[in-house]
């Protein structure tokens, strides 16, 4: 089963890699999203990540399971961090291992794109002048038809 977590603890890339190992795999891919020192021309000193944690855990688990189908293996591990992060720190780690590289790249890319589309997480960028702003995001779409009955 794929692994996923929403955490306030620093992400340890080495642990993510170590969690994937299998002798069946010929390709291991680790993606780290890290806090950049600039955004749209402004100097950034850090980012505050906030989540609807209970829902984010559920969505991230679903994304990881969908990625595992793409990877053809259950060896998918996804961690998203919350709280105050400094420049250079990883906010997200995505590990995928697969017998073949095409599937590993596809599954890894799928996870980060889905996170950006539907994980209920927001970030407030802190700028060098002391100001802070919520970053523009993407409106998530409800799957249609909804799981429960509708009034329409």
């Amino acid at each position, binding site marked *: 089963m794929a692994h996923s977590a929403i955490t306030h603890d620093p992400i340890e890339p080495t642990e993510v890699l170590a969690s994937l190992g299998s002798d069946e795999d010929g390709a291991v891919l680790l993606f780290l999203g890290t806090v950049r020192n600039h955004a749209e021309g402004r100097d950034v000193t850090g980012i505050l990540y906030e989540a*609807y944690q209970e829902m984010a855990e559920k969505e991230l688990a679903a994304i990881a399971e969908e990625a595992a189908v793409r990877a053809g293996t259950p060896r998918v591990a996804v961690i998203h961090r919350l709280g105050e992060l400094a420049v250079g720190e990883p906010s997200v780690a995505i590990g995928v291992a697969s017998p073949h590289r095409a599937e590993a790249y596809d599954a890894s890319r799928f996870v980060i794109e889905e996170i950006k589309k539907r994980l209920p997480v927001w970030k407030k960028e802190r700028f060098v002048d002391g100001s802070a702003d919520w970053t523009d995001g993407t409106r998530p779409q409800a799957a249609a038809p909804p799981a429960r009955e509708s009034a329409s």
Partner: protein
Amino acid sequence: MKIQTVFFATYRELAGVGSLEVELDEGATVGTLIDRLRSEACPSLPEDPAVAVNLTYALASELLHDGDEVALIPPVAGG
């Protein structure tokens, strides 16, 4: 019926609160709740925000039930 409404990020700042209990009539939908919030507690909420009902994204047409938790979800920016 009672609906627990929760706000995040920019919507929390618009609403000035993190959560709000709203009393609605039976048959109310997500859309009913949003209209109510826009006319009372949170006039600057967009007309058609993304919403989750009990941790699942939902359409404005979804029927609500007593005790539901409805989250108002600003555009997401994880990763």
